[in-house]
């Protein structure tokens, strides 16, 4: 597996895609802060040109990390089947399991690298351009990222599993969106009528990061600040990650490439 990981690292580092994605995401976050800064220049009473508002945007939408993780997987591996490189790797004796686990590891590593770079630009530009004290919002944002990491890992593993199991990228994307967002929302809605669904929905990451995180100009009420809330983030995240990994590993064993 190590050779596979090394070869993929070599390939990805020599491609342009991952750098382009990092540049675009960094530029978007900086642009957001620049817009807030410019509006403030025109309107002295504009209340949102603060570090708190800027960083809370991410704290309030941590499920965005799930999407980013899946996009990284798609950018790195969506063409494997089409290019015929996957069949070469298998023909050279690399097991399907090693390829699957290698892809998960590489995707996670690159996703973390990209996230760190983007965060540097995001937080850096906020501190440079915007007003207010940034200590608390930065702390809450970093705590939130830490709490969301297991669920982001699950999202990455799900994306790798679906790309490995589905023959078509569009089908993979549809399944990923359904499992990550649509099914939790359906459970959430049915939960208003059926209590069991409500209980299950509360343990679905997209639901609890949406419902149980409040970060605004007045203060914070984040689920990871209680031990039960933090436990929920970790158990649900790692639980889904483990489940997707088992499904992926079992599924690819019998998968023709």
């Amino acid at each position, binding site marked *: 597996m190590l*050779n*596979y990981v*090394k*070869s993929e690292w*070599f*390939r990805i580092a*020599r*491609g*342009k895609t991952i750098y382009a994605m990092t540049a675009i995401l960094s530029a978007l976050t900086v642009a957001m802060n620049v817009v807030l800064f410019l509006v403030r220049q025109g309107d002295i009473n504009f209340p949102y040109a603060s570090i708190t508002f800027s960083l809370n945007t991410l704290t309030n939408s941590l499920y965005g990390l799930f999407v980013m993780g899946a996009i990284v997987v798609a950018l790195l591996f969506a*063409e494997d089947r089409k*290019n*015929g*490189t*996957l*069949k*070469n*790797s*298998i*023909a*050279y*004796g*690399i*097991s399907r399991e090693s390829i699957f686990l290698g892809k998960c590891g590489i995707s996670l590593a690159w996703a973390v690298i990209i996230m760190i770079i983007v965060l540097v630009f995001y937080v850096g530009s906020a501190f440079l351009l915007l007003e207010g004290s940034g200590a608390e919002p930065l702390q809450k944002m970093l705590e939130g990222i830490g709490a969301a990491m297991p669920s982001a890992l699950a999202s990455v593993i799900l994306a790798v599993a679906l790309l490995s199991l589905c023959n078509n990228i569009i089908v993979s994307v549809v399944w990923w969106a359904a499992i990550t967002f649509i099914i939790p929302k359906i459970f959430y809605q049915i939960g208003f009528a059926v209590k069991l669904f409500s209980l299950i929905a509360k343990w679905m990451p997209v639901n609890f990061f949406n419902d149980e995180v409040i970060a605004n100009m007045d203060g914070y009420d984040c689920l990871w600040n209680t031990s039960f809330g933090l436990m929920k983030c970790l158990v649900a995240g790692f639980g889904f990650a483990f489940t997707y990994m088992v499904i992926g590993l079992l599924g690819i064993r*019998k*998968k*023709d*490439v």
Partner: protein
Amino acid sequence: MSDSVIESKAIVKNYGGFTALNNVNITIKRGEIYGLVGDNGAGKSTLFKIIAGQVIPNGGEICLFGEHLPKNLEQQRKRTGAIIESPGFYPQLSVENNLEYYRIQKGVPGREIVKKLLETVNLYNSRKKKCKELSMGMKQRFGLAIALLGEPELLILDEPINGLDPSGIIEMRKLLLMLNMEKNITILLSSHILSELEQLASVYGFLNEGKLLEQISASNLRKRCSDYIEILVSDFERYAALLEKKLNHKQFQVLPDNVIRISNPKLEIEVFSRLASDNNMSISKLEKKQMSLENYYMTLKNGGASSC
């Protein structure tokens, strides 16, 4: 050490209701060049993919270098190189970087092997080109370079001369023969150009509609398809009787157009012509022929191999 490099035992592969391979048994020994012959859809690529581990069979077993357990098979596949259907590579990466990618993946030591292989397949001058810019023939040669990484003991090549120009075909043939003779690399290959296969293979397997019709060595095939005579006489029934009675030759068949095909003729052609003239039969056609691989395959496919 096992003498068999590949052994497939009762391999079955179904795609939905379609049976791509039905109880296929082949044996390929070390040092052989095994030519797999079959029409499109006969199951050649499916068999290649099963051997390469890309497709999982529904039944049967593959042994590579004497090993059949899944984990051991993966280890043995490290001793193989393969191009199946089309060579796989990253189109945006350069030729050199694509080969380096596979070198790292296969754990082959030394970067200089990349240069050496590109020189072997005549692509060194194109090493900086992106793979998507290569012509069909160049891609095919590049696929061979990938397959040759790590000095494989077995090459699995599905249509390796596909897309090559005439000089490319000759180069590829020379290269494969050189690899087989000098490095004792076992080669399993298929080609639609049977005349080309005839110049390479030491053993043939004939596959039709998912079934292996026959596996035969090139030397036995040559014997079986040795010279034959076709003669058309005014009274074919009497001539057939005379063949048996006077010349004691029983290896013949009467073709639908009343032509008599005399297989394995040990006597000179004049003897067969005299047999007709001495018995007052006129001869409209008399030819000495040799059956090609193509003819043999067609005869076999239509259910009459042993007759030739």
